[in-house]
Structures are given as C-alpha cells and as structure tokens.
C-alpha cells in the first residue's frame, strides 16, 4: 500500500511530486515551504503565520485577492503554519489546474510588488483577532503557551507557539515581510505536490512552465537551537484562567518526528487515552469518574517532541487525585507493558488510520499534503510504507521501554490550570506562571 508518485526537481530546486488518482474529477495542488515559527526570533514571534496571511492578499500579476478567481472556479483552499512548515492548498475541478498553478507560482515569485502597508496592517489586525478568538477568549487557551515556555528555553525555537505573542505581532514591520519572503519563500525551499485526476506528463510540463522561471534564491539558514537540557526535577506551575473546572497538563520531552521511539510513543498514547477502553479513560473517567475528559499524545516535531497528558477534573475532585491516578496507570504500563489485546487494538487502529489517509487527494492531510510532508521532513516522498511499517514493527517490549526511558518521574512539566482566584486548587508547590 502506498501513494504512487513521480518526482522531478527543477533547476531552481523546486521539487514537483505528481500522484494520479482518477476517482473524482478534481485535483489537489499543495505547496509546502520549509519555514515555520521555529525560524522566528524572540521578539518577533508569530511572524511566519502573519506572513501566511499575506500570501492570500494578491500578487503582482493578479492583485485582487487570492480567493476570488479560485472560488469562482469551484476551488476550496486554505493554508496553515506550524512550528516547522507552512502549507498552502487548493482543491479544484481538473479544468482549473492551470489556474491554480498560475496563482501559486505568482505568489511564490511575485508577492512583494503587490504588498502594501494597508494590506499588511489589515492582516495584522485580523491575526490579532484570530489570537483573541482562538486563545485569549477560549477556556484553557493560554495553557499551550505556558507548557511550551516551560519545556523549552527562551532561545529555543519551540519556546513560543506559532500564533506568537500579541506584542510581537504588533511589532512586526513591512520590511520584515520582505526579508522573510526573500529568505524562505524560494523554490529551493519549497515542495509542490499535484494529486488527482490528471496526466503526469501534462502536469509536469505545466508546472515546469509556471515555476521553472522563478529564481532559486539562496539556501535559507537553518533554525538555530541548542537541544533543551534534560529536566532533572519536576517543575510544577499554576495558571489562573477563566475556567470552571481545574485541568492538569503533564508533559515530558520526547523523540523528534520519525526518530527512534516516536512510533512507540504514538501507540503508548493510543493505549493510554484513545477510546473508552484505553487505560486512562477507563480508570479516570469510566471507573472512578474523577475526570471529565482525558487525552494523551506524542507530539513529535522536526527538532524535538513532547509527550503530553491532559486531564480535566470532575467537580469536587482534585488535581492531586488526578495526578496520583495518572502516575499509577503509567507505572503499571512501564512495569508490565501493554497486553496482547491492547497491542492488537492499537495496531489495528494505526493500520486503519493509514488507510483512512488515502481517502482524499487534497486538503489538510490529503495525499498531496502527505507527499510533501514526507519529502520535506525525510527527503523521501515515498515514505508512506516505511512510515506504516514503523508502527507494525512496534513490540510490547519496545512500548514498555519508551515508557521507562521517556515518561519518567522527575522529568516532567506539570501545569495546573485553575479558576481565577483559586490558586489553592493547583498541585502543591506549583509556581505561578504568567502568559500574556
């Protein structure tokens, strides 16, 4: 099982990946730029994402907004930024493929001549409103920021979240945009995937025509970082927020994306908190009813990962109870490993999730997006099957080993988020943390 594709690299360094799927008369165009919030500097956080917004505001040869001609052609389209990359996609009827390539290549090559102060200032306001809507005005919305800041030192590029600090967003200047574009938005730092009801040779010709003339640019600098020093004793923090129920966040450093132990921890997350049969759900929510919700996940990224457990206390129950129960469940898993039934279930779920991922050509997580992800992160667009085999090879012993190696006592960040004015509901010894 795989995603068959053809790979070409243009002279300017742009990778072109083409996948044919004739199921539906649509085609996905997907572009990844290997730049994200980890390429930002302290004091200018949030910039990569703000920049993404400007990519939708028009380019030199079509300066009336990016959406208009594409929506008129029946496209759905979007983009997103995370710590490691920025992606853009359109899904269009096959007769609009050339239009999508025209538009994507125009903003890759000729964004700056169309950029104005007015557009920049407008999108800065929009992004500040996005931050208010998705973080400031949302219960527990600041917890992620507090966790990242605690897991990574201020000069590590995962110290801040992609949305960035509000003051940093306000401090952004138009000149920064120009420098950022010239440094990172070059063909040699990008990967183009076209997936859908198309003919490979025709796509290659068309894409080469549109993207071939763009200047390669310089090799962009890599994000600089010092690996975070190991946490040597648990750090307990408390954050007061407009919430009704206290919530506990517990995190450890963990392997980077595709590194040794990454897949094992993914399955540990499944066994711990995916579905009603999972150990934490069953113990904390189903049997003891001390938590209203529970989540556990391996969050692996390009230069590091963190494993996180999140549990919300049921009314009248304490975070200390939650912590005790979580540690007991973890202890048992570390000591005895998963059961054969759990192995069967989490392997079946992993297997199914790879097949679910083959259902759509476009959009976030569609086949075009996956080809680009594998190309950008491991330099092999055909990594699908290797990726899948990572999960098949996981043994119960290996899962037990990663629990012992990574999810240790004394190496945790533990954050209590409690209702305003009720700091006493936090775990004992928690230090107040403030997030702007």
């Amino acid at each position, binding site marked *: 099982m795989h995603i068959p594709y053809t790979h070409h690299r243009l002279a300017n360094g742009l990778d072109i990946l083409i996948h044919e799927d004739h199921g539906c008369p649509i085609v996905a165009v997907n572009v990844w730029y290997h730049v994200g919030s980890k390429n930002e500097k302290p004091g200018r956080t949030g910039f990569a994402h703000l920049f993404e917004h400007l990519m939708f505001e028009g380019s030199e040869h079509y300066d009336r907004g990016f959406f208009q001609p594409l929506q008129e052609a*029946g496209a759905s389209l979007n983009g997103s930024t995370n710590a490691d990359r920025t992606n853009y996609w359109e899904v269009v009827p096959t007769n609009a493929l050339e239009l999508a390539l025209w538009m994507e290549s125009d903003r890759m090559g000729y964004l700056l001549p169309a950029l104005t102060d007015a557009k920049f*200032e407008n999108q800065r306001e929009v992004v500040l409103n996005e931050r208010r809507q998705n973080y400031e005005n949302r219960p527990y919305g600041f917890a992620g920021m507090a966790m990242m800041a605690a897991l990574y030192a201020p000069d590590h590029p995962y110290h801040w979240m992609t949305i960035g600090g509000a003051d940093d967003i306000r401090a952004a200047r138009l000149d920064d945009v120009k420098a950022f574009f010239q440094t990172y938005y070059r063909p040699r730092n990008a990967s183009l995937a076209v997936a859908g009801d198309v003919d490979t040779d025709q796509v290659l010709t068309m894409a080469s025509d549109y993207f071939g003339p763009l200047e390669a640019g310089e090799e962009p600098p890599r994000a600089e970082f010092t690996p975070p020093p190991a946490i040597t004793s648990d750090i307990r923090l408390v954050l007061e927020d407009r919430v009704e129920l206290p919530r506990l966040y517990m995190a450890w450093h963990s392997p980077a994306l595709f590194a040794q132990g990454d897949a094992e921890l993914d399955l540990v997350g499944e066994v711990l908190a995916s579905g009603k049969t999972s150990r934490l759900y069953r113990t904390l929510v189903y049997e003891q009813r001390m938590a*209203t919700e529970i989540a556990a996940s391996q969050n692996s990224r390009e230069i590091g990962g963190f494993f996180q457990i999140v549990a919300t206390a049921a009314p009248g129950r304490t975070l200390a109870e939650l912590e005790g129960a979580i540690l007991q469940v973890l202890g048992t898993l570390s000591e005895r490993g998963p059961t054969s039934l759990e192995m069967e279930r989490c392997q079946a779920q992993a297997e199914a999730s790879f097949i679910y991922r083959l259902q759509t050509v476009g959009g976030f997580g569609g086949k075009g997006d996956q080809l680009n992800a594998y190309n950008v992160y491991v330099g092999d667009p055909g990594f699908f099957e290797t990726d899948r085999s990572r999960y098949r090879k996981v043994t119960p012993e290996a899962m037990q080993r990663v629990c012992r190696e990574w999810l240790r006592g004394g190496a945790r960040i533990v954050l209590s988020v409690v209702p305003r004015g009720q700091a006493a509901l936090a775990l004992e010894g928690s230090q107040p943390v403030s997030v702007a």
Partner: protein
Amino acid sequence: MAVDRSRLPALGPEPRFRFPEIRRRSLANGLCILTVEHHAVPLVSFLALFPVGAASDPGQRPGLAAVTSDMLDEGSGDLDAIELHESLGRIGGHLESEIGSDATILTLTSLARFADRGIRLLADMLMHPRLEQRDFDRVRELRLNRLVQMRDLAPALADRAFTERLYPDHPYGHQPIGTEASLRGMALAEVGGFHRSMFIPSRLTIVAAGDASHGALGDLAEGAFGGWSARAGTMAPVDPTRLPVPPPPRERLAVLHRPAAAQSELRIGHVSLPRSTPDYHALLVLNMVLGGQFVSRINMNLREDKGYTYGARTSFDFRRGPGPFALHASVQSEATVDAVIEAMSELRDIRGARPVTRAELETGRAALTRGYPQNFETAEQISRGAAQLALYGLPDDYFSTFMPKVLAVDEAAVTRVASEHIDPSRLLTVLVGDREKIGPTLDRLDLGAAAEIPPG
C-alpha cells in the same frame, strides 16, 4: 513555453462527473436500506439515520434524545461498554454519533474486510442497547459537567441565547444537550421509554457505502437488521414540517455581559425557511454572495476591509421545519458596535439598495456547482449525501438536478429571495462580551433597549 502573466488562464472544458448510483432496498419490518458503491479504498461506511432529534424531546425533558443517543454505545447485547469498544477497536472502526434538531445519526466506518462485524455491532447498539443504571449515571454526569464548562465558552453562550430567544416555547428552542435541571431530573426509565417508542425499524434508514457491491452491502445491512421485529412506536417524533413559525422576539438586541472578555461573540438573524422551500437553490446562491464564502460581502467587509474579526459568515440552517438564518462572528470588543452596523447594512442592502451584481452571481453559482463533485470523494461523504435525501424526502435524482437548478438562479431571483426572506425589522442581535469595552454606544444601533441576558 513562456507563460502569459498578463491574464489568468481560461478554465478548460468542465469535467464530466457521474454521481454515484443509489439503490434502495425495503425490508418487511419497514426499514429502508440505501447502498452506494465506492471502490477507491478498502473501507466501508455504514450510516444509521433516525428522524428523531432534539426537537422530539418531551417538553419537560430537554436533552433526553441526546442522552438516549449517547447511551447507544454504552453496551449492547452481550457486551458491556468496554467490551463493545474493544470490539470496535479491533476492527479499526471509527464510530461517530451526532444529534441535531431533526435527526440522530450514527456512522461507523471500518476496514472493508471487517464490514460484517461492523454492521453487526452497529445493529446491536441500535436494537439492543443495555441501558444500565451505572452507565446512565456516568453519561449524565459527563453531560452535566459539559454544561458547566460551556459557561465559559463564548460561542456556546451566544448560540444558546440566540436559539432561546428566537424559539421560545418551541421544539427548536433548546440546545440538544438540554438543561441542568432537566438532566438532573431525568431517570433511566425515561431513556428506555424514549428508545423503545422512538427507535423502531420503520423509521430507520441505513446507508451502506464503500468497497463492496450493491448486493453485498444490501445483504450485510439486511442480515444485521432484518430480524428486528416491526412494531409501532408508542410515541411519535415531532413532525418538524408541522411546527409553527414563532413570532419575532419583542427585544431586538440582547447582551450577555462577560467582564474582561477578549472579544464580542456576535449573532444576528431570525427564523427562516424549512429545507422544503421552493426557494432553496436561490437562497444558497444568496448566501454565497452575502456571507457563505471567503469572498462574500460580509467577510470582505468585516475582515478584509475593516480587520474587525478573523472571519464572519452567514448561513441558512435548513431543517425539516423553519430553521434559523444567522450571521456568526467573533469581533474585537472595541469594534463591536461598528461591526454590527456594517453587518446590518450588508443584510439590508442586498435586498435592493445594492443588489447582487452579475459577477457576484456568477461567483456564487460557480462556487456551488463547480465545487460540487468534491462532496463525493469519500464513502462517508457519499453516505451523508444519501442520508440527506432520506431525511428531507428528496428524489433519488436529486444530485444530478442540483447543478442545473443552481445555474437557473438569476440576479432577479437572488434579489427577490433576499427581500422576501431577510427581514431587517425582525433581526435579533445577540452580543456576548464585555459591556465596558463595547462602550456606551449601543444606542447607535437603533435596535431599542438592550435586554440583559442573565449569566449561567
């Protein structure tokens, strides 16, 4: 070849699209099975549709339908809740259940080779839920906790206030989750009674879609549900097509004060038309122009021109009965009044002062028609499409008539439905935000005195 950047490339000829064929099978117990073949990936998706939703909650028991649907996967037949989910996990199954005003829908997707086990699990859940006290206690408690958490969710607060004020004493007037008092007073016997009398085979539609033949899909569904004995329901679900249209609320502006809120959550709208309206396609086009896509008037004004919000949209929530038309946005506190004024002027102007232009009409129609095939890429999408036919009583050739009907909508039709079906004098505006930051200028809205929405 050198590319021409002096103009956008023309679109090629429209690709042909064949809508998936839907076949029907009726069982002796009254159950209806729809099958759709979809061979792209080795998956099968089963969807169960009951036309029983939150509107069928007994008057004193808002939330009963939702608790009942929540109890379906809490153990069935020989399996307790844990064993049931163990079985689902082993087939890589993905179960979702959702409840709206008019219907309860359960969807189970699994690897095609486990289709037989999947459909049997789904059938067991619907036909023989165990409905045990300890599971009921836990499910109810989780829902009560959810209600507690919703007190801090501005969008949920706004939706609730908006719904309650548009539909007082009406089956559409409460959220499916119900209220604290109702959940606390609910007994397990009520759930059992609701299930027994509402969930009967003649009301059920099963859509089976995926990597198998019509015959095989139909046989799977028939094998799993054929033995369910026909019986009459002792309680009839609310028939939303017979629901009255509630009168417009007396107060046109209502504010929920949330001290230190980072934004104002905004809803503007009124009761609108049922799905069966002959103006359905014209209203879809109107909505695209007004607030249904990125390049719509309201989003371009409030976001791209003014920067008041991350996004603003409008929608007609078409149901079997008269659902709401609403504008949704979360706006910067200090700009709240200006945002409402701009939104109101867009809602007013499209009715005639600034009618839809040819270019807007074409963009709106094209987005609906050219983008249509994208809705049929996965088995689950196709199941959902087919379920709409069953829920709204649409003909089997509905999909293939959709595009021509949209393309037949012209400027005059859009302006007519805008002036007939958006009524500025009836619009209700709900604001959830910090009154201090919104400022003393609410009078500028000219909506009369603002009603205070009590917190909690």
